[in-house]
C-alpha cells in the first residue's frame, strides 16, 4: 500500500521552491537517481506554477498529494482556481518559441504518465507518475 503525503501550499510564488525541496527528498528516499529527481522537481514546479498562474485568487492556495510506493511516485497538484478550457490549450511551436505555454509540454516530456483533469468553474488536477524502473 502506498504512503500518502499531502502538502497544503499557500498561493504565493515563494512556496514553490519549498515544494520542490520536499519532493526532492521524497524522490531520493524512494531511490530515484539524480536525473529522475531533477525531472520530478521540474515537473512538480511546473504544475505548481500552473496552479498559481491560473489562480484568480492567489491567496487561495493549492494541494500537492504525493503517493509513494516501491516502484513509483505519483504526484497530483490540485487547485480550485476555476479551471480552464482544455480545448484552448495548444502545443507550443518549438520553431517559433513564445514566452509562455511551455509548462505542460515540459511536464509531459519529463514524467512517465501525465493526466490533466480540468473543469471550468471549479479547478484543475495535474496527476504525474514517475517509475523507479
Amino acid at each position, binding site marked *: 500500500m502506498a504512503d500518502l503525503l499531502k502538502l497544503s501550499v499557500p498561493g504565493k*510564488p*515563494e512556496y*514553490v*521552491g519549498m515544494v*520542490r525541496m520536499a519532493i526532492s527528498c521524497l524522490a531520493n528516499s524512494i531511490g530515484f537517481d539524480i*536525473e529522475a529527481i*531533477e525531472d520530478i*522537481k*521540474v515537473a512538480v*514546479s*511546473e504544475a*505548481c*506554477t500552473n496552479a*498559481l*498562474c491560473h489562480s484568480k485568487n492567489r491567496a487561495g492556495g493549492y494541494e500537492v498529494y504525493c503517493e509513494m510506493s516501491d516502484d513509483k511516485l505519483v504526484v497530483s497538484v490540485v487547485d480550485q482556481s476555476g479551471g480552464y478550457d482544455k480545448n484552448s490549450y495548444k502545443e*507550443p511551436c*518549438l*520553431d517559433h*518559441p*513564445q*514566452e*509562455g505555454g*511551455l*509548462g505542460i*509540454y*515540459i511536464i509531459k*516530456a*519529463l514524467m512517465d504518465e501525465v493526466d490533466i483533469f480540468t473543469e471550468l468553474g471549479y479547478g484543475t488536477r495535474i496527476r504525474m507518475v514517475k517509475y523507479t524502473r
Partner: protein
Amino acid sequence: MTLHIQKSFDPQKGLWEIVPQGEIDISTAPVLRSCLDEAFNEEKGHIVLDFDQLRYMDSTGLGVIIGAYSRMKEKGYRIVLKNPRKNILKLLQITNLDRILCAEQE
C-alpha cells in the same frame, strides 16, 4: 529560494556578461527579467548568460530568456547561454531552445 545576479559590460567587445547564481522559478524569474531589461537599456550590446552557478531553472526562466531574445533580435543583438548544468541543458534540449541559445557550444 534565492537568485543573485552579477553583471558586467565589456565596452571593447560590446558585450554584457550576466552570471545568475541560485535558482530561477516563478518567484525569482522577475529578478532575471529586470536584470536583462536594465542591462540592455543601459548599454545596447549582446548578452552572454553564464549559467555555471545556476542550479535550477524551469519554464518561467525559459520564458524570460525567450522574451529577451525576441526583443534583442529585433534590434540586431543576440543572447547566448553558456555552461548550463546537465539538468538545465536537458530542458533546453526538450524545448529545442539549445539550437538558438547555445550556439557557442556547437
